[in-house]
C-alpha cells in the first residue's frame, strides 16, 4: 500500500491481526459442540482474539500524550471486547450484559474524542432505556436456560470471513488516510473555509468549532436547534409514531395459529 518499508510492515501486521480476529470469531461462535472440544475451541479462540487485539494495538498510532494514549487504549479495548463477547456469548441475557459493557466503552471513546454530551447520552439512552427494554423482553420471552438455537449459528465460518474482509478493507482504507494527503480527504476544514480559505484560522473561528471548548453542550444545542430545527421536529414526530405504532401492534393479541383476525364489524 506504500512504497516504503515501514508501512508495508504495518500492513502485514494488520493482515495478521484481521486473520487472527476471523479465526478467533469462528472458534468462539456457537457451533453446536459440547464437552472438551467446545472448551478447547473457546480457550484457543480467546487466545487468538488476544493476539489479534495485541497486533491491532501494536499497529496503532501514537497519540499526543501517554495519559491520553492509555485512556483511549483502555476504553477502546473495553468497547471491542464487550462487542465481541456480545456476539459470541451463548446466553442472550449475558449477551445483553456484555452489550452494556461495550456501551460503556463506546461512551468512553466518545468522551476521549471530544463528544462529551454524546458519551453521556449514549449511557442514558442505550444503557438506561434500550438495554432495559431488551432485558424485559428477554425475561418475558425466554425465562429459562439456553435454547438449542442459541447453541448453533448460521454459517459461522462464512460470516467470520465476511467480517474479516470488511475489517481488512476498512483498516486498509483508514491506513491510506494516514499515509499522506490523498484526494479523498483534501477538503478544506470548515473553519478554514469560513476564515476566507487561507491557511491561518482566526481565533474566533477556531473557538467556534473546537469540540473541546468549555461550552461544548451549549454549542451543540445551538447547532441542533438552529441549523437542524426541522430535523429535530421530524425526530419528535418519529418518536411519537413509533410509540403509537408499537402500542397498536402489541395490543393486537395473536389468536390461533394461522387464523387471520377478523375485522371488527361496524353496526349499521
Amino acid at each position, binding site marked *: 500500500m506504500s512504497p516504503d518499508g515501514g508501512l508495508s510492515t504495518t500492513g502485514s501486521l494488520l493482515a495478521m491481526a484481521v486473520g487472527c480476529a476471523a479465526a478467533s470469531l469462528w472458534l468462539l461462535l456457537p457451533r453446536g459442540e*459440547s*464437552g472438551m472440544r467446545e472448551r478447547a475451541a473457546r480457550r484457543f479462540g480467546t487466545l487468538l482474539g488476544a493476539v489479534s487485539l495485541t497486533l491491532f494495538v501494536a499497529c496503532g498510532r501514537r*497519540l*499526543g500524550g501517554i495519559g491520553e494514549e492509555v485512556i483511549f487504549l483502555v476504553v477502546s479495548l473495553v468497547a471491542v471486547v464487550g462487542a465481541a463477547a456480545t456476539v459470541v456469548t451463548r446466553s442472550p441475557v449475558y449477551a445483553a450484559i456484555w452489550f452494556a459493557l461495550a456501551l460503556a466503552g463506546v461512551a468512553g471513546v466518545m468522551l476521549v474524542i471530544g463528544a462529551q454530551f454524546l458519551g453521556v447520552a*449514549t449511557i442514558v439512552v442505550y444503557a438506561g432505556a434500550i438495554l432495559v427494554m431488551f432485558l424485559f423482553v428477554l425475561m418475558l420471552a425466554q425465562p429459562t436456560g439456553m435454547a438449542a438455537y442459541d447453541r448453533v*449459528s448460521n454459517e459461522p465460518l462464512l460470516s467470520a470471513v465476511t467480517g474479516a474482509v470488511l475489517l481488512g478493507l476498512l483498516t486498509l482504507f483508514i491506513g491510506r488516510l494516514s499515509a499522506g494527503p490523498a484526494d479523498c480527504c483534501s477538503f478544506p476544514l470548515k473553519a478554514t473555509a469560513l476564515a476566507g480559505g487561507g491557511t491561518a484560522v482566526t481565533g474566533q473561528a477556531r473557538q467556534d468549532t473546537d469540540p473541546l471548548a468549555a461550552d461544548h453542550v451549549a454549542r451543540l444545542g445551538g447547532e441542533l436547534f438552529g441549523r437542524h430545527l426541522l430535523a429535530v421536529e421530524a*425526530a419528535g414526530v*418519529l418518536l411519537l409514531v*413509533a410509540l403509537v405504532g408499537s402500542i397498536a401492534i402489541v395490543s393486537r393479541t*395473536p389468536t390461533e395459529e394461522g387464523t387471520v383476525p377478523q375485522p371488527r364489524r361496524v353496526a349499521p
Partner: protein
Amino acid sequence: MTPSPLVLDGLVVGAMLLTLGLVGILSRRNLIVMFLSAELMLQGISVSLVSWSRHHGDWGGQVLVVFVLTVAACEAALALVFVLQAFARTGRLDAAAWQSLRESNLPRTIDLELPASDAEPLTFPRLTPAGVEPDHDPDAALEREHV
C-alpha cells in the same frame, strides 16, 4: 489535511464495532441477539461519525449521532414489539422458526441433533427451614383488609 492519530484510531474502533455487529447479525439465530448486533453496528457508525466531526471541526457528525440515537430508540421499540408477537406465535425466539418466509427456491433449514450440553444447570442454595411453622390459613392471608 491528514487526520490526526486520534481520529484514525477512533475510525478503527468504529470499524471493529461495525464488523463485530455484522458477524453477529449474520450468524446468530436468537432474534434478541440479532437486534443487539444491529445496535452494535449503529454504535460503530456513531463512533466513526464523532471521529469525522472531530476531524472536520464542525458539529455535523455529532448532530447526526443525536439522530442516530433517536432512530435507534424507535427501532428498538418497534423491533421488540415484533419479537414479542413472534414469540407469542411460535414460542421460540428463533429466526429459523420463520423460515416459511424464505424464497421458494431456497432449501429448508433443518436442525441437526445437538450433542447434549454438559453445562451444569444452575443450582441455588436453599436455606434450611428453621423453627416451627405456625398455624395460618393461606386463603385468609390473601384477603388483606388493611395494607
